[in-house]
Each structure stands twice: as C-alpha cells, then as structure tokens.
C-alpha cells in the first residue's frame, strides 16, 4: 500500500464512545424514578415503624403503633387542645419571627450598603450568633419572667443575628457594574437602594428567611418545653408526665407537617420572586 495521502478529505468513521460506567456526578434520574424515591423516602420509615411496633419487640409504651397515634390525634383534635396549642405556638413564631425580620433585614441591608455599618456591627454580631439561643432561657426568664415576652425574645435572639449576617452577605453581592450603570442612568443613592440593590437581593433574603424560619420553629418548641401553659411543646411535656407516648408521637408528626408547610410556602414564594435568578 504505497498509496499514502497527507490530506484526507473523507474523515475516518468515529468510534462510538463506550457509555461511561462511573456515574458519581450529575447522574440523570428520570422524573418517574425521582418521584418513586420521594414516596419511598417517607413510606419506608413509616412501614418500618408500623412493623416494629406491631411485632411486639418494643413495648407499646415506648413505641405506639400508628393506629394508636391516630386515635390520640383525633382525641386531641376533638377536645380542641391541639388547635389551641397549635395556635399558641404559631402565634409565638409569628410574633418572634416577624420582629426578628423587622430588625435583621434593615440592619443587614445597612451593613451591606453603607461602608461604616459593616465594621461597626459585624464583630459584635459575629460573637453573639455563636451563643446558643437556648442558653439564654434562664436569663430571659429572670429578666422577662415566664410569660410570652421571654418566649418571643428567645425566638428573636435565635434568628436575628444569623439573619442579619446572611442578609448583609446577599446585599453585598450586587455587582459593582450594576451600581455603576444605575449611576450613569441618573439614579441617586436612595433610588439605587430601592430599585437596584433591594430587588437584586430579594431572592437571597428570602432564602435566608427560609433557613431561619426553621430555626424559629425549632426554638418555639424548646421555649415551651421549659415554662409554658400552652403550645405544642407544653403539650409534649404534659404527655411525658403521664407516659402518653402516643400523644407525643401525634404532636411530633403535627410539628413536622406544619414545618413542612411553612417551608414549602416559602419555597413557592421564593421561586416566584426569584424567577429571573433561576
């Protein structure tokens, strides 16, 4: 075969590459499989619970079976205790979280936009946020008594510092160029803050709120475990006194479902507001 050419006009056939075997990253999962996995994620533990409690390995008093929990749930719902406890807890979360947001979002916005605010507030908030909010409970009781104020104050303490720093971070991420462009378009400082920085930061602020709503939600139950006469946490302590594990389970499930609802709601709002950043 002396017939060699330097330039080949026809390209040689390309071998089809073998399918990659290792799928550690970005592995595709079909929508159907994903949904199956989501359902399994909830159903499998539930079935395990039912099986273990039904097998009699664990005393009923420690691990009540789902039907008993359901019975406890309907009983509490019928007496109205559940609703009033739920309202009490949600009221505290609403008040505490709202207050925390009213403080932390403007403060974080200030820290992210005004040059003197960052060095003034960051060090102290950086220290305070590492103090566990629940460690303040005794102090709050001494200062504010065992009423509503101390519980709401606990929620504020647990949320406000993290939310401030997270807000400040998001606000700082507005690109320099966007601010420059806005200035050349005749926008003054106030207008840039309201029409450029705020809308740019809003999806990130909502992300921070979603994370910290979970914190507030956890803390309200903690607050009610200590000194309360109403609320879901209080109901759990009462049930503990009478070894009513079925009631405790029912309340835990209610807490979980309400938490999930709050999370999903915030996710939906975030997705709508932040369509552009997706």
């Amino acid at each position, binding site marked *: 075969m002396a017939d060699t050419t330097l330039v080949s006009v026809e390209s040689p056939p390309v071998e089809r590459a073998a399918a990659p075997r290792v799928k550690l990253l970005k592995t595709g999962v079909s929508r159907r499989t994903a949904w199956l996995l989501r359902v399994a994620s909830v159903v499998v533990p539930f079935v395990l619970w039912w099986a273990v409690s039904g097998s009699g390995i664990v005393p009923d008093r420690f691990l009540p079976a789902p039907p008993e929990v359901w019975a406890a749930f309907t009983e509490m719902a019928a007496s109205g205790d559940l609703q009033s406890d739920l309202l009490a807890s949600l009221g505290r979360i609403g008040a505490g979280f709202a207050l925390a947001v009213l403080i932390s979002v403007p403060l974080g916005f200030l820290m992210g936009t005004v040059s003197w605010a960052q060095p003034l507030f960051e060090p102290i908030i950086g220290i305070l946020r590492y103090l566990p909010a629940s460690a303040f409970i005794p102090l709050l009781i001494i200062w504010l008594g065992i009423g509503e104020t101390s519980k709401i104050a606990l929620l504020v303490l647990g949320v406000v510092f993290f939310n401030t720093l997270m807000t400040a971070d998001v606000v700082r991420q507005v690109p320099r*160029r966007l601010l420059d*462009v806005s200035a050349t378009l005749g926008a003054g400082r106030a207008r840039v803050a309201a029409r450029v920085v705020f809308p740019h930061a809003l999806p990130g602020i909502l992300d921070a709120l979603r994370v910290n709503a979970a914190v507030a939600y956890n803390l309200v139950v903690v607050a009610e475990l200590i000194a309360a006469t109403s609320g879901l946490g209080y109901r759990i302590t009462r049930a503990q006194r009478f070894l009513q594990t079925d009631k405790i389970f029912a309340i835990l499930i209610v807490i979980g479902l309400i938490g999930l609802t709050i999370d999903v709601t915030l996710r939906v709002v975030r997705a709508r507001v932040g369509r552009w950043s997706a």
Partner: protein
Amino acid sequence: MSLRFEGVSMAYTPGVPVLEHIDLEIPPGEFVTIVGASGSGKSTLLSLVAGLTRATEGRITLDGRPVEGPGPDRGMAFQSPSLYPWRTVERNVAFGLETRDMSRQARKERVAWLLDEVGLTEHAAKLPGSLSGGQQQRVSIARALARSPRVLLLDEPFGALDVQTKEDMQLFIRRIWRDLGTTVVMVTHDVEEAVFLGRRVLVLASDPGRVARDLRVEPPGEGLEVKRTAAFLAVRAQVEDLVRREHRAHLAAAHA
C-alpha cells in the same frame, strides 16, 4: 461645544499615574475609538467622562460644564451588558426614564421607539436571561440612549461576543451613530474594530497613559468588505504596530 479634557491626570495610588496630562477635544457627533496596550488607562478615561471616577488633576467639560459625577447627558455601556435581570427588556430600557417627570405615555413611546431602533421590539416582554449576548448588548445600548445623551461611552462593548455577532454589532452601532448623531467614544482592544468604526482613532501609550497618536481615518467604503482593502489593512497595521510597541514597553517597565 464639545467634550474637552484639560490637563487631566488620574492616579488610583498617589505617585502612580494611570493617565497623565490628557488634553483632548472631541467635537459633537464624532465617532472616536480608543486603543492601547493594557495599563494605558483606556477604561479609566471613559470612567472619568462618565463621572464614575474623579480626576486627580485637570478637568473634563461637556459643552462647557465641568463633569462632576454621573449624569444622564453621558450614557454608558460596558463589556458585560449589566442589565437588571429581574426587569423585562422594555423595563430595562425604561430605567433611566423613570427618574424624570415623564408621563407614562411618553415613556412608553420613547421605549418603543428605542426598541425599534435596536431591533428588539418582539423581545420587549422577555427577561434578559433569555436573550443572546448580542441582544443583551443591544438592550444595554438602548438603555444608555434612553435619555438622549450628548455622548455615548462604550467600554469594550463587543469584546465578549463571537466574531459574526461582533461584526453585526459593529454595523449596528454605526447605524445608531448615523441615526442619532450622538458623539460616540468607544474603547476597544480590537484594532480592526477601532479602525473600521472610528473616524478618529486615539492610540494610548502606557505607564502613564497618554495620547500617543491621534489619527483621522477615512475608510474607502461602508460595509464589512472594507476590512479587506489595502488601504484599510495599511492603517490597521500601522495602529497595530503602535499598540504592540506600547505593549512591549509596558512589559519591559513591569519587569524592570
């Protein structure tokens, strides 16, 4: 009545001037392109005109009034289109108009006219994220033009675009310039682009930045085919040599 630099110097760090003693007069309606090696302060020059940076010495005047900060008489577009990603195309263009006491109707008409001028009418209601790079840059230029600036400042506006889109945009910006009669000052690192678009090409020297050459360019035609003519290639080569010499000098200075 023009854009004037009077002994303008600029140093971000005292003692290390980025621009030194720039004296320049750009009459209304001129299309000026600025090329230069890195370190020549091209972008700083535009930033000074825009009022985003203050000169350390000298002054810049526009129609006799000194530039003291950003203002709507000078529109600017950057290499990254920097659009408001949450605003639709038409609301991006409208941003500069929302500050003035302008009736809704008048604003709507102005935006519609601008979108027509840049050929994006059908994309008016889209978010910038769904547009191509060239389209985004058109929106950015339309937004800069909204308040009929005396000067349009372009900082490497087509630097991130592919070659075909870039050539489309070159014809586009020339048409805009023809239609509106605005002064255009454009910084670019692409000598071909500078010679093709500019009726006047400024070559900046580095360390510190100053005007090394001020060339008048009269290309023998309008279309992209001009780029292949001998006359065009000769001017382009001349400018490229100048820029290259400054680039070498800059490197030598950096290693000294």
